[in-house]
């Protein structure tokens, strides 16, 4: 449709507002309360325009454009109206622009300038509320607040924490938490999205306050280094330091929204603990050395061990934290230079069972849909994912759908935040996922809700599955899982009847000794209800780390080359041999978990760890520690001296995400570009450089095609990896992220997989049986221990625990224990307890809470001082080799004398 704005014909899609139509034509209508992330609020009234035939001025942010509409945005009358409004706003605004941090980046200032309102002509009362400086990251100065309501809107509509609201009425109205408490005492998640929405200096990032003027920062767009959401960050750099982080509205998975880690977890970059020089163990002590000395030592040791014990005595752990280019180079180094397929990384510990499971059922092991299209779902099943804490930005998309009426079913042993938002919370016993999923499938089949058409056209093996789920009547499932039968039926009816249902899952599904079967049961349910291949549906494993998807894509796995090309396939192997100019090993290598057993057995002598912290992240810490001590040679490359690096013979200082170019692939398969913002500290180098350098030193100079820019490495990846075929740094720089498969330069990417056909042709149902966890509670260890993440901290804490404000929010670990268990065991909230399993014991404070049910305790694994993985069970899934982090038997007792 067409309308006329300021005399120009403007085309607009039906449903767009006048404001959007004007902006698309480059006509700038001023706004203060409008935010693209929010529904129109229309409170500031600055966007009033004249519409021919309308009774009075029209708020263009809210009014829809209509065919033939005639709009004038800057008539004398409208301009005068805006002046009066700005005059009024300034009459109640502390205009301390000379010292305000937002000066130069303040929308109110811009508009006062544009309309020539120097000072207010009203000398009336001003609201005087004290400045609130009572959180680690956010400062609120109500005297600068113009009550545009954007912070309230973000907190209500986007973050849905409902922390902020208007208080009082009329003139004294102000923004407040309930009862005026500090935000940290509320349900606030400290995401700072309210700060990002504030058009004035009322809400400010505390860490950058009084440090730099807006015009003195250089802004660099890059990608968040934390979870798999892959939010776009803009790093504000001053004097070579990152001082503030923002995110561009409308860009990246978060669309401008970030979580507390992404927005405020950047202080680790310039932390004094950063490794700045290589360290070499001399007489048992790690001692600074030159790069040359360190690399020479590594070269000789690797040469020697390979010579004596063969290439398979060396194992390399790549990293889900490094760039695609670095992981590519690393696995190439292991395969082409060392000559082994012993390369793996921590995906083994998180989504190995997704890879084995989905590869069998769908033929491709990645999230099928994008975050954005999840907003179109009518219902969600979230199972084994603490989405709002582990993937906070992914959760925003779910929350948005909920706000629009979607139903939510959460299956989780804990009453996590998403469970509180759910229509149905299926509180199952840890490890009983298959029974529950089979039960849901049983009800859907029994009640005739299966999508027969989809099953007939797109799948195979349905009969096998139907037979397998037949015994799983709700009553039996209740017995196994502890979930009331009527809730199972109600959940099944939602999933079986809605048009679009999306399944989201994470490590509550995968980290089990039967994790692959859990994943198969999920793909069964999705196919049974025809929820694959369309927007708002799909099987969506949420990947845990910034580049865990990419590290897998890059072949940092013992069985595949980049792009999931099996090492055992002679034809494919020949291609890689030709490309790399060397003969390549044909046998599948060792996984992370198998490696520690192999070290104990003596078959592995050397371990190279690039950016992982196995001491805290792998199960059965004692077993890992003994293995590390037993090694002949351990190389660790990292940004900090981690718990793992403590055991190393050589430690190499690495550049962090802010100090390099490259790409990360997020959980949506979206490949995104990093841009270097600051220099690495001291002699720290980008990880890929080390492996190129070592390749040269180990005699591969001629055959080694990697040249020293990451852009060129990506070009090599694209040449050899079909799904990355159309990806290049140039293109990503210009177009933003691209979701693979991107077969060629013209291809726009593939946000939704399996639309016409499954990657393997037909989707395959599998009949799976419920099997109990490897270790169940018994008389000696009567409680079930489950582990996981929390919002504020990340992984083994190397980064977040070096961020002062985050430590202020969550200073240490804890064990969640139910009030009933606590009372029975004499455990007191906040007091230390001992948690013990057959593998070890730790001390940590107790958090007595309803979040866990009776008989279950939960420990986050981020904390070295109370390492959950000293307790966990290394029992493995036979196919995926993933350990059972999520279930083991434990006992809890109060620490005597505490």
């Amino acid at each position, binding site marked *: 449709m067409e309308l006329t704005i300021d005399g120009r014909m403007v085309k607009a899609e039906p449903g767009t507002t006048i404001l959007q139509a004007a902006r698309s034509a480059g006509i700038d209508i001023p706004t203060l309360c409008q935010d693209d992330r929010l529904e129109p609020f229309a409170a*500031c009234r600055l966007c009033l325009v004249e519409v021919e035939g309308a009774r*009075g001025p029209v708020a263009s942010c809210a009014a829809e454009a209509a065919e033939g509409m005639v709009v004038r945005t800057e008539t004398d009358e409208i301009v005068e109206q805006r002046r009066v409004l700005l005059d*009024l706003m300034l009459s109640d605004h502390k205009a301390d622009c000379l010292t305000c941090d937002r000066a130069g980046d303040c929308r109110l200032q811009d508009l006062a300038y544009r309309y020539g309102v120097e000072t207010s002509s*009203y000398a*009336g009362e001003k609201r005087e509320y004290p400045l609130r400086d009572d959180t680690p990251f956010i400062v609120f100065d109500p005297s600068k607040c113009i009550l545009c309501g954007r912070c309230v809107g973000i907190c209500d509509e986007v973050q849905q924490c409902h922390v902020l609201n*208007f208080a009082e*009425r*009329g003139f004294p*109205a102000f923004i407040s938490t309930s009862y005026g408490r500090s935000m940290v005492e509320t349900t606030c998640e400290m995401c700072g999205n309210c700060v990002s929405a504030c058009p004035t200096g009322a809400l400010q990032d505390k860490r950058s306050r009084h440090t730099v003027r807006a015009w003195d920062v250089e802004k660099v767009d890059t990608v968040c280094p934390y979870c798999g959401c892959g939010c776009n960050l803009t790093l504000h750099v001053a004097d070579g330091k990152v001082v503030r982080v923002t995110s561009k509205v409308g860009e990246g998975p978060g669309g401008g929204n970030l979580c507390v880690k992404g927005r405020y977890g950047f202080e680790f970059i310039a932390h004094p603990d950063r490794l700045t020089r290589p360290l070499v163990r001399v007489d048992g002590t790690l001692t600074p050395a030159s790069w040359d000395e360190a690399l020479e030592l590594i070269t000789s040791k690797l040469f020697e061990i390979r010579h004596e014990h063969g290439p398979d005595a060396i194992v390399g752990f790549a990293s889900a934290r490094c760039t695609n280019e670095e992981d590519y180079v690393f696995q190439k180094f292991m395969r082409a230079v060392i000559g082994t397929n012993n390369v793996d990384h921590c995906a083994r510990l998180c989504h190995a069972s997704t890879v084995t499971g989905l590869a069998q059922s769908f033929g491709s092991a990645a999230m099928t849909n994008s975050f954005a299209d999840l907003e179109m779902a009518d219902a969600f099943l979230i199972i084994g994912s603490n989405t709002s804490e582990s993937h906070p930005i992914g959760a925003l998309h779910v929350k948005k759908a909920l706000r629009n009426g979607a139903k939510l079913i959460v299956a989780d042993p804990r009453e996590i935040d998403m469970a509180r938002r759910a229509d149905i919370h299926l509180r199952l016993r840890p490890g009983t996922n298959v029974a529950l999923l089979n039960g849901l499938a049983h009800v859907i089949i029994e009640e005739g809700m299966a999508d027969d058409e989809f099953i007939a056209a797109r799948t195979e093996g349905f009969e096998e599955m139907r037979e397998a789920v037949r015994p799983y009547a709700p009553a039996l499932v209740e017995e196994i899982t502890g979930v009331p039968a009527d809730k199972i039926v109600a959940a099944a009816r939602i999933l079986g009847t809605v048009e679009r249902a999306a399944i989201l899952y994470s490590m509550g599904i995968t980290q089990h000794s039967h994790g692959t079967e859990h994943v198969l049961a999920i793909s069964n349910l999705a196919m049974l209800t025809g929820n694959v291949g369309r927007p708002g549906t799909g099987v969506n494993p949420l990947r845990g780390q910034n580049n865990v998807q990419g590290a897998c894509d890059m072949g940092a796995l013992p069985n595949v080359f980049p792009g999931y090309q099996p090492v055992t396939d002679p034809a494919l192997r020949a291609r890689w041999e030709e490309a790399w100019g060397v003969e390549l090993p044909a046998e599948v290598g060792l996984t992370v978990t198998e490696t520690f057993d192999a070290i104990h057995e003596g078959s592995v002598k050397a371990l190279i760890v690039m950016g992982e912290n196995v001491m805290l992240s792998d199960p059965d810490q004692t077993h890992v520690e003994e293995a590390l001590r037993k090694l002949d040679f351990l190389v660790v490359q990292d940004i900090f001296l981690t718990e793992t690096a403590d055991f190393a013979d050589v430690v190499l200082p690495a550049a962090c995400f802010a100090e390099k170019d490259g790409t990360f692939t997020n959980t949506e398969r979206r490949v995104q570009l990093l841009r270097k913002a600051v220099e690495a500290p001291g002699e720290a180098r980008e990880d890929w450089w080390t492996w190129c350098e070592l390749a040269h030193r180990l005699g591969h100079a001629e055959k080694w095609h990697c040249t020293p820019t990451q852009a060129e490495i990506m070009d090599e990846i694209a040449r050899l990896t079909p799904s990355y075929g159309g990806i290049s740094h140039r293109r990503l720089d210009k177009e933003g992220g691209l979701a693979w498969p991107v077969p060629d330069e013209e291809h726009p990417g593939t946000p939704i997989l399996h639309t016409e056909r499954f990657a393997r042709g037909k989707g395959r149902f599998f009949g799976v049986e419920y099997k109990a966890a490897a270790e169940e509670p018994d008389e000696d260890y009567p409680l079930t221990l489950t582990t996981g993440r929390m919002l504020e901290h990340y992984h083994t804490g190397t980064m977040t625990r070096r961020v002062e404000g985050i430590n202020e929010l969550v200073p240490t670990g804890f064990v969640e224990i139910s009030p009933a268990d606590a009372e029975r065991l004499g455990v007191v909230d906040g007091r230390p307890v001992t948690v013990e399993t057959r593998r070890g014991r730790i001390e940590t404070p107790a958090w007595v809470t309803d979040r866990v049910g009776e008989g279950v305790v939960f420990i986050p694994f981020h904390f070295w001082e109370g390492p959950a993985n000293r307790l966990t069970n290394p029992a493995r899934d036979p196919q995926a080799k993933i350990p059972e982090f999520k279930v083991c038997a434990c006992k809890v007792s109060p620490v005597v004398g505490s």
Partner: protein
Amino acid sequence: MSERADRIEAAFAHVFHPSMVSAREGEQEVRVCAATTCAGSGAGAVRDAFRDELTRRGLQQEWRVVETGCRGSCDQGPIVSVEPAGVFYPRVSPASVPRIVAETLVGGRPVEDLLYRHPDTGRPVARAADVPFLLGQRRLVLALAGRIDPASIDDAIAHERYRAFVEALIADEPDDVIDAVEESGLRTRVGDPGSVGSRWRRALDGTHDERFVVCTADEGDPGAFADRTVLESDPHAVIEGMLLAAFAIGARHGVVRVRRDHAAAGERLRGALVECRERGLLGRDILGAGLSFDIEIDAAERMLVCADETALIASLEGRRAVPRIRPPAPTEAGFRGRPTVVSDAVAYAAVPWIVRNGAAAYAAAGLHEHTGTRVFSLSGQVRNGGVVEVPAGTSLRRVVEDIGGGARPGRRLKAVQIGGPLGVCLPATALEAPIDDLAAGSSSLVVLDDRTCMVDLARHLLSISQREGCGTCVPCRLGTKRSLEILERIVDGRGRDGDMELLAELGTYCSQGTLCVLGGNASNPVLGTLRDFADEYEAHITERRCPAGVCRALITYSIDPEACTGCTLCAQRCPAAVISGREGQPHVIDVSGCTKCDICRQVCPDGAVRVRSGVSQAVAPGTA
């Protein structure tokens, strides 16, 4: 009759318990108004006195004492009427009850000195129907108010309540109900005043099959009590209206917002809802006709901002009462995001009458091109205040002078304020204006006499809007604040040249640019008084005087030496101790210390204290 009709009629027959009817036309009854105003002036004691007296005389079988709802003439309470003769007694005290019983009940003749006196002639008026206050009215909506016991569903049914609903159920043509309401021209005061019927029709358009019927009796401004009166006096009219709405649009749930401080209205409604549920007029499958509907009460504090439908809905949903932008209109996405029809209690109470008597009959009740009736609460400086129902289009003058009896003795009618803080002020010269949709959201009609300062009135009304706005939209939150500050300085004697222009400019921009009904109308009192009472503003600003003698900073107190008898009362009570004079001698006020508290004027038995508009020129103490 069809089977359906038989079934519904049979079910309805079970609803009614004729033996429990208390107010019966044509029988011997003493009807005591028990609505809020009469109750406040002692109706309870009067009722007890009648019961005691009748018992004492052994007449309790022959005469029933019925507590009724409001007859409207609230200034005359407690009101009693003796039926079937219809003898009307205003301001009855328990002491006069024995005489009424002896002479009227037993003797069959009125007690002349207790009768109402005609305001003009001073002659006694015996029958309620002849009281001028009621004479000029056309009571359709309020037809049963004051005639039945509002606590009795059987009284209501005996007076044909729920007949319209039953007939609509039998006819089973929801569209016909909407047509009737639409064609009747029935309007609601909520939000942008508008057609009730067309809202119902729009609510049908949505795709949702869940719809809501919302009734608001939250009259947010002082001086408005029409909805309260209807709920107190004839709650079943409102329930029946909502049932018809539910039937018409296919709603299952209704909500009534009542003011928490309107306790009697809430109680009456609550009781009526309980009775309806017990008798099967609310709940599942009402009268076996397939309609399921129930109504809940949402009691809350008075909120002016709930004059806006979207704010009301937010408040009903348990959120802060903040208006939101439209579209979508509540008829599209209202309560809980579902299509919702919102009207005031008075509008719902009119629906049964319309459905029974036809759209044309209701429309014809209005004068000229106006349709139906309008219900107002008449108060202020008027002789007979109360709740009034008149044909739409009736002139204000008729309401104020004929029904209300005009200004109080000795005072001059100055203006009429309609619709509270969001309404308009009409000067005495403009009273030919017909009553129709003069003001949004409010039923109040406040009469102002010459002792009202229009500048101070504007300040007062604006201060209410300013205080009660939701605080989000800039023109309303800040524009009204700055206007208020200007008005405050004018009444404080600190007005400046240009203030009137500034007020006009601010008021105009603010009313153009706001989000909701409150912001859009908050400047009405200022703009209206600026237009019609500019001279008063000028007197305040340039002459530093308040012509009405109200604004303390702009008046001077003095004692008329001719009138003063030197009783010393004023000097004794003066809190500032600035009145001097010997006993028996004229007293003098030292104006330099006078706080203008007005106590001296109030206590002076001789009316010797004078209030002069303007501030006296600097007078040195002791030289006056």
